[in-house]
Protein backbone atom coordinates (compact mmCIF):
# COMPACT_ATOMS: atom_id res chain seq x y z
CA UNK A 1 0.00 0.00 0.00
CA UNK A 2 1.03 3.62 -0.09
CA UNK A 3 -0.30 7.17 0.40
CA UNK A 4 -4.08 7.17 0.27
CA UNK A 5 -6.55 10.04 0.39
CA UNK A 6 -8.59 9.80 3.58
CA UNK A 7 -10.94 12.79 3.35
CA UNK A 8 -10.96 16.55 2.69
CA UNK A 9 -8.88 18.47 5.24
CA UNK A 10 -11.92 20.58 6.17
CA UNK A 11 -13.69 17.45 7.45
CA UNK A 12 -11.19 16.98 10.28
CA UNK A 13 -11.99 19.63 12.86
CA UNK A 14 -9.90 20.44 15.88
CA UNK A 15 -10.98 18.69 19.10
CA UNK A 16 -13.03 16.17 17.09
CA UNK A 17 -12.33 12.59 16.09
CA UNK A 18 -13.10 11.61 12.51
CA UNK A 19 -13.38 7.94 11.64
CA UNK A 20 -12.63 6.65 8.12
CA UNK A 21 -11.99 3.38 6.40
CA UNK A 22 -9.30 3.23 3.73
CA UNK A 23 -9.13 0.04 1.69
CA UNK A 24 -10.71 -1.84 4.56
CA UNK A 25 -8.38 -0.37 7.21
CA UNK A 26 -10.22 1.57 9.91
CA UNK A 27 -8.44 4.65 11.22
CA UNK A 28 -9.28 7.75 13.21
CA UNK A 29 -8.06 11.19 12.21
CA UNK A 30 -7.51 14.26 14.34
CA UNK A 31 -6.45 17.83 13.67
CA UNK A 32 -3.56 18.96 15.89
CA UNK A 33 -3.53 22.55 14.63
CA UNK A 34 -0.43 22.47 12.43
CA UNK A 35 -1.28 19.14 10.82
CA UNK A 36 -3.14 15.88 11.19
CA UNK A 37 -2.59 12.58 12.95
CA UNK A 38 -4.01 9.16 12.11
CA UNK A 39 -4.27 6.35 14.66
CA UNK A 40 -5.87 2.90 14.84
CA UNK A 41 -9.54 3.26 15.85
CA UNK A 42 -9.42 1.68 19.29
CA UNK A 43 -8.02 2.55 22.70
CA UNK A 44 -4.79 0.65 23.42
CA UNK A 45 -6.12 -0.13 26.89
CA UNK A 46 -9.24 -2.20 26.29
CA UNK A 47 -10.15 -1.82 22.61
CA UNK A 48 -12.82 0.79 23.26
CA UNK A 49 -13.67 2.67 20.04
CA UNK A 50 -12.10 6.08 20.55
CA UNK A 51 -14.56 7.75 18.20
CA UNK A 52 -17.07 7.34 21.04
CA UNK A 53 -14.84 7.30 24.11
CA UNK A 54 -12.12 9.77 23.09
CA UNK A 55 -12.17 13.34 24.36
CA UNK A 56 -9.83 15.79 22.59
CA UNK A 57 -8.77 19.11 24.05
CA UNK A 58 -5.54 21.11 23.76
CA UNK A 59 -3.90 18.32 21.76
CA UNK A 60 -4.48 15.84 24.54
CA UNK A 61 -6.75 12.88 23.97
CA UNK A 62 -8.45 11.19 26.92
CA UNK A 63 -10.36 7.92 26.75
CA UNK A 64 -13.36 8.42 29.00
CA UNK A 65 -13.45 4.75 30.08
CA UNK A 66 -10.45 4.69 32.42
CA UNK A 67 -8.91 8.10 31.71
CA UNK A 68 -5.86 7.06 29.74
CA UNK A 69 -4.42 10.14 28.02
CA UNK A 70 -2.01 10.84 25.20
CA UNK A 71 -0.16 13.71 23.60
CA UNK A 72 -1.97 13.79 20.26
CA UNK A 73 1.07 15.03 18.35
CA UNK A 74 3.45 12.29 19.48
CA UNK A 75 1.05 9.60 20.69
CA UNK A 76 3.06 9.42 23.92
CA UNK A 77 1.16 8.35 27.03
CA UNK A 78 0.40 10.92 29.75
CA UNK A 79 -0.80 10.37 33.32
CA UNK A 80 -2.22 6.92 33.97
CA UNK A 81 -1.86 5.61 30.38
CA UNK A 82 0.48 2.66 29.97
CA UNK A 83 0.83 2.46 26.18
CA UNK A 84 1.31 5.03 23.40
CA UNK A 85 -1.04 5.59 20.49
CA UNK A 86 0.29 4.13 17.25
CA UNK A 87 0.51 6.71 14.45
CA UNK A 88 0.25 6.47 10.66
CA UNK A 89 2.16 9.06 8.64
CA UNK A 90 -0.05 11.81 7.27
CA UNK A 91 0.35 14.76 4.89
CA UNK A 92 -1.87 17.27 3.09
CA UNK A 93 -2.23 17.21 -0.67
CA UNK A 94 -4.75 19.04 -2.86
CA UNK A 95 -7.00 19.75 0.09
CA UNK A 96 -7.02 16.09 1.14
CA UNK A 97 -5.60 14.40 4.23
CA UNK A 98 -3.32 11.67 2.90
CA UNK A 99 -2.47 8.68 5.11
CA UNK A 100 0.41 6.29 4.52
CA UNK A 101 -0.86 2.80 5.08
CA UNK A 102 1.74 0.13 4.58
CA UNK A 103 0.10 -2.36 6.85
CA UNK A 104 -2.66 -2.06 9.42
CA UNK A 105 -1.27 -0.96 12.81
CA UNK A 106 -2.73 -2.94 15.67
CA UNK A 107 -2.21 -2.86 19.41
CA UNK A 108 -0.90 -5.96 21.07
CA UNK A 109 -3.46 -6.58 23.78
CA UNK A 110 -1.44 -9.50 25.10
CA UNK A 111 1.66 -7.39 25.44
CA UNK A 112 3.07 -8.44 28.78
CA UNK A 113 5.55 -5.67 29.28
CA UNK A 114 5.15 -4.37 32.80
CA UNK A 115 7.63 -1.59 33.03
Amino acid at each position, binding site marked *: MSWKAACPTGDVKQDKIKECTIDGVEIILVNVGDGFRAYPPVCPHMEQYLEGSGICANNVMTCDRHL*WQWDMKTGEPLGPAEKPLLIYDTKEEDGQVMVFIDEELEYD*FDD*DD*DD
Partner: protein
Amino acid sequence: MLIEIEKKSKTYRFEANAGEKILHAGLRAGVPLPFECATGTCGSCKARVNQGDIDEGWPEAPGKENFKAAKREMLMCQCVAQTDCNLTVPSKIKAFREDDINPDHHQGKITDYEMLTSDVLRFEVKVPIEGTFHAGQFFVLQAPELEGYRAYSMVNYSQSTDTLEFIIKKFPGGELSNWAFESNRLNETLDVFGPLGRATFHPDEGHDLFMIAGGSGVAGLMSILEHANQVNYFQDHKVELYFGVRTPNDLFFAERFRAIKTQHPDNVSINIVFSNEPPTSEQLSGNDGLNYLTGFVHERALPAVLEGGGNTMHYLAGPAPMVDALIRPLILDSKIPADRIRYDKFN
Protein backbone atom coordinates in the same frame (compact mmCIF):
# COMPACT_ATOMS: atom_id res chain seq x y z
CA MET B 1 -3.68 -24.43 43.18
CA LEU B 2 -0.58 -22.62 42.01
CA ILE B 3 -1.20 -19.62 39.76
CA GLU B 4 1.67 -18.33 37.65
CA ILE B 5 1.70 -15.03 35.78
CA GLU B 6 4.72 -14.42 33.62
CA LYS B 7 5.86 -10.90 32.93
CA LYS B 8 9.04 -9.78 31.24
CA SER B 9 10.58 -8.51 34.43
CA LYS B 10 9.45 -11.32 36.73
CA THR B 11 7.13 -14.24 37.24
CA TYR B 12 4.44 -13.85 39.89
CA ARG B 13 3.38 -17.01 41.71
CA PHE B 14 0.63 -17.37 44.27
CA GLU B 15 -1.63 -20.00 45.75
CA ALA B 16 -5.39 -19.96 45.20
CA ASN B 17 -7.66 -21.90 47.54
CA ALA B 18 -10.33 -24.24 46.21
CA GLY B 19 -13.25 -22.11 45.06
CA GLU B 20 -11.35 -18.84 45.49
CA LYS B 21 -11.51 -16.17 42.76
CA ILE B 22 -8.11 -15.76 41.12
CA LEU B 23 -8.22 -11.99 41.67
CA HIS B 24 -8.78 -12.47 45.40
CA ALA B 25 -5.98 -15.02 45.67
CA GLY B 26 -3.51 -12.72 43.92
CA LEU B 27 -4.40 -9.55 45.80
CA ARG B 28 -4.35 -11.42 49.10
CA ALA B 29 -0.83 -12.58 48.29
CA GLY B 30 0.24 -9.00 47.60
CA VAL B 31 0.29 -9.25 43.78
CA PRO B 32 -1.26 -5.96 42.60
CA LEU B 33 -3.39 -7.48 39.82
CA PRO B 34 -5.38 -5.00 37.70
CA PHE B 35 -9.06 -4.55 38.55
CA GLU B 36 -11.64 -1.83 38.97
CA CYS B 37 -15.16 -3.02 39.92
CA ALA B 38 -14.11 -6.46 41.24
CA THR B 39 -17.63 -7.60 40.38
CA GLY B 40 -17.64 -8.67 36.74
CA THR B 41 -18.86 -5.51 35.04
CA CYS B 42 -15.87 -3.48 33.84
CA GLY B 43 -13.45 -5.92 32.17
CA SER B 44 -10.29 -4.42 33.72
CA CYS B 45 -9.18 -7.73 35.25
CA LYS B 46 -8.86 -9.54 31.93
CA ALA B 47 -6.40 -12.44 31.69
CA ARG B 48 -5.70 -15.23 29.25
CA VAL B 49 -5.32 -18.82 30.28
CA ASN B 50 -2.21 -20.40 28.73
CA GLN B 51 -2.32 -23.58 30.73
CA GLY B 52 -4.67 -25.16 33.23
CA ASP B 53 -8.42 -25.42 33.78
CA ILE B 54 -10.63 -22.71 35.15
CA ASP B 55 -14.28 -22.31 35.98
CA GLU B 56 -15.09 -18.95 34.42
CA GLY B 57 -17.84 -18.16 36.93
CA TRP B 58 -20.65 -15.77 36.01
CA PRO B 59 -21.36 -16.63 32.34
CA GLU B 60 -23.22 -13.38 31.57
CA ALA B 61 -20.68 -11.03 33.17
CA PRO B 62 -20.89 -7.73 31.21
CA GLY B 63 -17.12 -7.28 31.60
CA LYS B 64 -16.58 -10.04 29.04
CA GLU B 65 -18.31 -8.14 26.26
CA ASN B 66 -15.37 -7.96 23.83
CA PHE B 67 -13.60 -11.11 24.93
CA LYS B 68 -12.29 -13.74 22.56
CA ALA B 69 -13.21 -17.27 23.58
CA ALA B 70 -10.57 -18.69 21.23
CA LYS B 71 -7.88 -16.95 23.27
CA ARG B 72 -9.33 -18.31 26.53
CA GLU B 73 -9.83 -14.83 27.92
CA MET B 74 -11.55 -14.50 31.27
CA LEU B 75 -12.18 -12.18 34.20
CA MET B 76 -9.93 -12.82 37.17
CA CYS B 77 -12.57 -11.37 39.52
CA GLN B 78 -15.03 -14.08 38.48
CA CYS B 79 -13.04 -17.18 37.67
CA VAL B 80 -11.76 -19.96 39.88
CA ALA B 81 -8.79 -22.24 39.13
CA GLN B 82 -9.50 -25.96 39.03
CA THR B 83 -5.90 -26.98 38.41
CA ASP B 84 -2.57 -25.15 38.55
CA CYS B 85 -2.73 -22.38 35.94
CA ASN B 86 -0.41 -20.25 33.86
CA LEU B 87 -1.91 -16.90 32.84
CA THR B 88 -1.09 -13.84 30.75
CA VAL B 89 -2.28 -10.53 32.17
CA PRO B 90 -2.12 -7.80 29.49
CA SER B 91 -2.39 -4.80 31.83
CA LYS B 92 0.50 -3.61 33.89
CA ILE B 93 0.97 -5.18 37.30
CA LYS B 94 1.80 -2.30 39.58
CA ALA B 95 0.94 -1.13 43.02
CA PHE B 96 -1.10 2.03 43.30
CA ARG B 97 0.40 3.19 46.56
CA GLU B 98 3.03 1.69 48.81
CA ASP B 99 0.76 1.85 51.82
CA ASP B 100 -2.00 -0.15 50.11
CA ILE B 101 -3.48 -2.72 52.43
CA ASN B 102 -3.54 -6.34 51.28
CA PRO B 103 -7.17 -7.40 51.13
CA ASP B 104 -8.34 -10.65 52.71
CA HIS B 105 -11.39 -12.84 53.24
CA HIS B 106 -13.42 -12.56 56.40
CA GLN B 107 -16.60 -13.95 57.75
CA GLY B 108 -18.63 -10.90 58.72
CA LYS B 109 -21.66 -10.61 60.96
CA ILE B 110 -24.30 -7.91 60.64
CA THR B 111 -24.31 -6.09 63.98
CA ASP B 112 -26.42 -3.04 63.18
CA TYR B 113 -29.25 -2.61 60.74
CA GLU B 114 -31.43 0.46 60.26
CA MET B 115 -33.53 2.07 57.56
CA LEU B 116 -32.30 5.60 56.74
CA THR B 117 -35.03 6.39 54.20
CA SER B 118 -37.69 4.35 52.42
CA ASP B 119 -35.07 2.90 50.06
CA VAL B 120 -31.69 3.28 51.76
CA LEU B 121 -30.55 1.18 54.66
CA ARG B 122 -27.45 1.33 56.79
CA PHE B 123 -25.79 -1.72 58.28
CA GLU B 124 -22.60 -2.61 60.07
CA VAL B 125 -20.58 -5.74 59.54
CA LYS B 126 -18.23 -6.94 62.24
CA VAL B 127 -15.20 -8.94 61.13
CA PRO B 128 -13.05 -11.13 63.41
CA ILE B 129 -9.90 -9.00 63.36
CA GLU B 130 -9.17 -5.30 63.49
CA GLY B 131 -7.71 -3.69 60.44
CA THR B 132 -7.85 -0.54 58.39
CA PHE B 133 -8.61 0.65 54.89
CA HIS B 134 -8.16 3.83 52.90
CA ALA B 135 -11.16 6.15 53.11
CA GLY B 136 -13.06 5.73 49.84
CA GLN B 137 -12.39 2.00 49.54
CA PHE B 138 -14.95 -0.78 49.29
CA PHE B 139 -15.42 -4.42 50.22
CA VAL B 140 -17.15 -7.07 48.16
CA LEU B 141 -19.90 -8.93 50.01
CA GLN B 142 -21.51 -12.27 49.36
CA ALA B 143 -24.83 -13.04 50.96
CA PRO B 144 -25.89 -16.58 51.86
CA GLU B 145 -27.25 -18.50 48.89
CA LEU B 146 -26.63 -15.69 46.38
CA GLU B 147 -24.29 -16.15 43.43
CA GLY B 148 -21.45 -13.66 43.20
CA TYR B 149 -20.07 -10.75 45.16
CA ARG B 150 -21.38 -7.16 45.18
CA ALA B 151 -19.27 -4.12 46.00
CA TYR B 152 -20.14 -1.69 48.82
CA SER B 153 -18.13 1.33 49.91
CA MET B 154 -17.43 1.83 53.57
CA VAL B 155 -19.07 4.86 55.18
CA ASN B 156 -16.93 4.91 58.32
CA TYR B 157 -13.22 5.40 58.79
CA SER B 158 -10.83 4.36 61.50
CA GLN B 159 -7.11 3.63 61.77
CA SER B 160 -8.04 0.35 63.34
CA THR B 161 -11.48 -1.19 63.47
CA ASP B 162 -13.32 -4.48 63.19
CA THR B 163 -16.47 -2.73 61.98
CA LEU B 164 -17.38 -1.89 58.41
CA GLU B 165 -20.31 0.46 57.98
CA PHE B 166 -22.25 0.37 54.70
CA ILE B 167 -25.33 1.81 53.08
CA ILE B 168 -27.28 0.01 50.43
CA LYS B 169 -29.88 1.43 48.11
CA LYS B 170 -32.91 -0.60 47.10
CA PHE B 171 -32.38 -1.65 43.54
CA PRO B 172 -35.57 -2.92 41.84
CA GLY B 173 -35.06 -6.58 40.90
CA GLY B 174 -31.56 -6.59 42.44
CA GLU B 175 -30.77 -9.79 44.27
CA LEU B 176 -28.56 -8.57 47.10
CA SER B 177 -30.55 -5.41 47.72
CA ASN B 178 -33.71 -7.56 47.75
CA TRP B 179 -32.11 -9.85 50.29
CA ALA B 180 -31.05 -6.90 52.43
CA PHE B 181 -34.44 -5.17 52.42
CA GLU B 182 -36.65 -8.27 52.62
CA SER B 183 -36.34 -8.61 56.38
CA ASN B 184 -34.20 -7.40 59.26
CA ARG B 185 -30.81 -9.01 58.67
CA LEU B 186 -29.31 -8.39 62.10
CA ASN B 187 -26.93 -11.24 63.10
CA GLU B 188 -26.80 -12.73 59.60
CA THR B 189 -23.35 -13.70 58.34
CA LEU B 190 -21.75 -12.64 55.06
CA ASP B 191 -18.54 -13.55 53.26
CA VAL B 192 -16.59 -10.35 52.72
CA PHE B 193 -13.35 -9.58 50.88
CA GLY B 194 -11.43 -6.34 50.95
CA PRO B 195 -10.43 -3.59 51.21
CA LEU B 196 -10.34 -2.71 47.51
CA GLY B 197 -10.46 0.38 45.34
CA ARG B 198 -8.47 3.42 44.31
CA ALA B 199 -10.90 6.30 44.65
CA THR B 200 -9.20 7.00 47.94
CA PHE B 201 -8.22 9.89 50.17
CA HIS B 202 -4.71 10.42 51.56
CA PRO B 203 -4.10 13.40 53.83
CA ASP B 204 -0.40 13.55 52.82
CA GLU B 205 -1.44 14.52 49.28
CA GLY B 206 -2.69 17.83 50.65
CA HIS B 207 -5.43 18.44 48.09
CA ASP B 208 -8.56 20.46 48.46
CA LEU B 209 -11.52 18.16 47.81
CA PHE B 210 -14.38 18.48 45.35
CA MET B 211 -16.93 15.70 45.59
CA ILE B 212 -19.98 14.76 43.58
CA ALA B 213 -22.22 11.92 44.74
CA GLY B 214 -25.47 10.51 43.45
CA GLY B 215 -27.58 8.53 45.95
CA SER B 216 -25.63 5.77 47.69
CA GLY B 217 -22.46 7.08 46.00
CA VAL B 218 -22.12 9.29 49.05
CA ALA B 219 -20.95 6.26 51.10
CA GLY B 220 -17.25 6.39 50.24
CA LEU B 221 -17.24 10.19 50.28
CA MET B 222 -18.65 10.14 53.82
CA SER B 223 -15.69 7.95 54.79
CA ILE B 224 -13.33 10.51 53.26
CA LEU B 225 -15.02 13.33 55.18
CA GLU B 226 -14.73 11.27 58.39
CA HIS B 227 -11.04 10.57 57.88
CA ALA B 228 -10.28 14.16 56.95
CA ASN B 229 -12.16 15.45 59.95
CA GLN B 230 -10.37 13.06 62.30
CA VAL B 231 -7.00 14.51 61.26
CA ASN B 232 -8.31 18.06 61.38
CA TYR B 233 -7.76 18.34 57.63
CA PHE B 234 -10.38 21.03 57.15
CA GLN B 235 -8.42 23.37 59.35
CA ASP B 236 -6.43 24.30 56.25
CA HIS B 237 -8.03 22.48 53.30
CA LYS B 238 -11.35 23.05 51.66
CA VAL B 239 -14.03 20.56 50.73
CA GLU B 240 -17.01 21.17 48.51
CA LEU B 241 -19.54 18.34 48.32
CA TYR B 242 -22.54 18.06 45.99
CA PHE B 243 -24.90 15.28 47.01
CA GLY B 244 -27.88 14.47 44.78
CA VAL B 245 -31.05 12.73 45.97
CA ARG B 246 -34.62 12.85 44.66
CA THR B 247 -36.63 14.61 47.35
CA PRO B 248 -36.23 15.94 50.90
CA ASN B 249 -37.59 12.60 52.14
CA ASP B 250 -34.69 10.80 50.48
CA LEU B 251 -32.02 12.79 52.28
CA PHE B 252 -29.82 10.98 54.80
CA PHE B 253 -26.59 11.83 56.67
CA ALA B 254 -27.65 15.49 57.10
CA GLU B 255 -26.66 15.28 60.78
CA ARG B 256 -23.21 13.96 59.97
CA PHE B 257 -22.63 16.67 57.38
CA ARG B 258 -23.76 19.32 59.81
CA ALA B 259 -21.38 18.06 62.50
CA ILE B 260 -18.42 18.57 60.16
CA LYS B 261 -19.70 21.84 58.77
CA THR B 262 -20.13 23.29 62.26
CA GLN B 263 -16.49 22.61 63.13
CA HIS B 264 -15.06 24.31 60.03
CA PRO B 265 -17.77 26.55 58.62
CA ASP B 266 -15.42 28.43 56.29
CA ASN B 267 -13.73 25.48 54.64
CA VAL B 268 -16.60 23.01 54.41
CA SER B 269 -19.38 23.50 51.87
CA ILE B 270 -22.15 20.89 51.70
CA ASN B 271 -24.67 21.20 48.90
CA ILE B 272 -27.72 18.96 48.78
CA VAL B 273 -29.37 18.83 45.36
CA PHE B 274 -32.95 17.56 45.00
CA SER B 275 -33.89 16.38 41.51
CA ASN B 276 -37.64 15.86 41.92
CA GLU B 277 -38.90 18.33 44.53
CA PRO B 278 -37.83 21.70 45.91
CA PRO B 279 -36.26 21.93 49.37
CA THR B 280 -38.59 22.43 52.34
CA SER B 281 -39.05 25.97 53.68
CA GLU B 282 -37.10 25.00 56.79
CA GLN B 283 -34.18 23.85 54.65
CA LEU B 284 -34.33 27.06 52.65
CA SER B 285 -34.19 29.16 55.79
CA GLY B 286 -30.47 28.31 55.84
CA ASN B 287 -30.33 27.72 59.57
CA ASP B 288 -28.68 24.34 59.46
CA GLY B 289 -25.54 25.35 57.59
CA LEU B 290 -26.15 23.17 54.55
CA ASN B 291 -27.08 24.55 51.12
CA TYR B 292 -30.15 23.13 49.44
CA LEU B 293 -30.59 23.30 45.68
CA THR B 294 -32.92 21.91 43.03
CA GLY B 295 -31.90 20.19 39.79
CA PHE B 296 -29.62 17.41 38.67
CA VAL B 297 -26.54 17.07 40.81
CA HIS B 298 -24.11 17.17 37.89
CA GLU B 299 -25.69 20.32 36.47
CA ARG B 300 -25.45 22.06 39.83
CA ALA B 301 -21.94 20.87 40.62
CA LEU B 302 -20.15 21.49 37.33
CA PRO B 303 -20.33 25.30 37.35
CA ALA B 304 -18.62 25.26 40.74
CA VAL B 305 -15.58 23.36 39.46
CA LEU B 306 -12.47 25.50 39.30
CA GLU B 307 -11.04 25.65 35.79
CA GLY B 308 -7.80 23.69 35.63
CA GLY B 309 -8.57 22.27 39.05
CA GLY B 310 -5.84 24.11 40.96
CA ASN B 311 -4.76 21.91 43.84
CA THR B 312 -8.09 20.06 43.99
CA MET B 313 -8.76 16.32 43.85
CA HIS B 314 -12.16 15.48 42.33
CA TYR B 315 -14.13 12.50 43.61
CA LEU B 316 -17.13 11.15 41.69
CA ALA B 317 -19.28 8.32 42.98
CA GLY B 318 -22.67 6.98 42.05
CA PRO B 319 -24.56 5.40 39.19
CA ALA B 320 -22.36 4.78 36.15
CA PRO B 321 -24.38 7.13 33.86
CA MET B 322 -23.87 9.99 36.32
CA VAL B 323 -20.12 9.40 36.54
CA ASP B 324 -19.82 9.09 32.75
CA ALA B 325 -21.80 12.31 32.30
CA LEU B 326 -19.36 14.13 34.58
CA ILE B 327 -16.03 12.93 33.21
CA ARG B 328 -16.40 14.55 29.80
CA PRO B 329 -17.20 18.10 30.95
CA LEU B 330 -14.63 17.89 33.74
CA ILE B 331 -11.89 17.13 31.23
CA LEU B 332 -13.17 19.13 28.27
CA ASP B 333 -14.70 22.23 29.81
CA SER B 334 -13.08 22.45 33.21
CA LYS B 335 -9.69 21.17 31.95
CA ILE B 336 -9.14 18.92 34.95
CA PRO B 337 -6.15 16.57 34.50
CA ALA B 338 -7.13 12.89 34.51
CA ASP B 339 -4.99 12.15 37.56
CA ARG B 340 -7.05 14.64 39.56
CA ILE B 341 -10.24 12.64 39.06
CA ARG B 342 -11.04 9.55 41.14
CA TYR B 343 -14.30 7.77 40.59
CA ASP B 344 -16.38 4.76 41.52
CA LYS B 345 -19.05 3.67 39.09
CA PHE B 346 -21.83 1.76 40.86
CA ASN B 347 -23.03 -0.62 38.18
